[in-house]
């Protein structure tokens, strides 16, 4: 074996690199040889550690096989592009299944440990060689673990960005219910960015529809903190600068309590219990009067 030829006491850079390469070759050969056994061992340890519970055993085994092969290949070639692409691809498949970051990191570390164990088993008689093999193995293995974990996290972040984009596009419609009366139903979480977008949209709609009254319904807003409340106040003030009156409706008891507790000043804001009340109030402001048809009279 080439590893025997290189003298470890000779610190020459070139022979050291060759030495490492040779050791890695030997290592890869060993891992190829024991592929079936190590793979099974690994899959067993994954199940034992209760990782990847979202996937069936067969799926875990199938993924384990391809991860194993890619892992060994990365060790052999020392290039990580293929592994990077593979881990991105893998992440794409398993993220929708609800696989978490700690699971991915966990299984890659388990594979590293499984392989290291097998190396201990093989070289336990030649301690010095074991040392050199591990010297070659560990940096490469750590780099692989790193690559896979980073790939997974990047993919996840990409998905999160995509979803944020989607939510932003769903956004919030500004609806005209009567001449000069707009409704803005807000559903979900209001973050600073969304609040800004909401305000801009509302102001543009006020201008386009020549609105005089706007009803903002926040029935669908689960929680409110001082930031969100301030955004709301700002929206109301900005609308007023355009000459529109804003009525806020649908403050839940919890939100009302929070706002009073944290001391947000909503005295400038007209509030009405529910959307119906808000629209009635708006109609009153606009001078509308809804009169039911007398009974028996044709519509």
């Amino acid at each position, binding site marked *: 074996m080439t590893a025997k030829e290189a003298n470890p006491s000779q610190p020459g850079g070139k022979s050291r690199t060759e030495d490492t390469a040779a050791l890695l070759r030997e290592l890869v050969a060993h891992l190829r040889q024991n592929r079936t056994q190590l793979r099974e061992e690994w899959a067993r340890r994954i199940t034992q550690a209760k990782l990847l519970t979202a996937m069936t055993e067969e799926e875990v085994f199938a993924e384990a096989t391809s991860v194993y092969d890619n892992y060994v290949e990365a060790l052999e070639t020392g290039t990580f592009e293929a592994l990077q692409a593979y881990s991105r691809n893998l992440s794409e498949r398993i993220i929708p299944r609800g696989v978490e970051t700690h699971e991915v990191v966990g299984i890659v570390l388990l594979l590293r440990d499984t392989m290291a164990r097998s190396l201990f088993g093989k070289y336990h008689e030649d301690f010095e060689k074991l040392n050199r093999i591990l010297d070659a193995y560990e940096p490469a293995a750590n780099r692989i673990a790193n690559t896979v974990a980073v790939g997974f996290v990047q993919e996840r972040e990409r998905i999160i960005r995509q979803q944020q984009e989607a939510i932003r596009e769903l956004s919030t419609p500004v609806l005209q219910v009567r001449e000069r009366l707009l409704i803005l139903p807000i559903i979900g979480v209001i973050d600073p960015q969304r609040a800004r977008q909401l305000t*801009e949209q509302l102001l543009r709609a006020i*201008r386009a529809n020549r609105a005089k009254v706007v009803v903002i319904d926040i029935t669908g807003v689960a929680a409110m903190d001082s930031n969100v409340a301030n955004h709301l106040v*700002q929206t109301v*003030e*900005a609308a*007023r*600068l355009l*000459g529109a009156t804003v009525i806020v409706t649908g403050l839940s008891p919890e939100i009302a309590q929070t706002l009073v507790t944290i001391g947000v000043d909503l005295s400038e804001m007209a509030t009405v219990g529910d959307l119906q009340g808000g629209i009635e109030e708006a109609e009153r402001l606009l001078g509308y009067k809804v009169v039911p048809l007398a009974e028996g009279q044709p519509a």
Partner: protein
Amino acid sequence: MEVPILKQGDYLIASIQSALTDADLSQLREALVERVGRFRSRGVIVDVTALDVMDSFAVRTLRDIAHMARLRGAETVIVGIQPEVAFAMVQLGLTLKGIATALDLEEGLNFLNRRGKERVDRA
């Protein structure tokens, strides 16, 4: 640049055409307050449609105009604040509290007419 002030019946209309310096704004304030008395005006409309920036001095001057005109017996409406300007003003905390605003000149005139009628009704 001097801001033209038009007399329209009981009202004065100041239509700002371009960005104004602080001196122009002060000049506008003095001219308006003076003319409210000269023409016995009941209302003042300041049209800021052409402004795409509004700084704290401009907002303060508008507020001063409104307060001063009220002391001289005229109601003031600020009309035509652009959506972006409104947003920026609110972010800066310049909210023109207590001063009437309207979407455009037409709305402003409607507002003043309504106010005038209320005053007549009350009398």
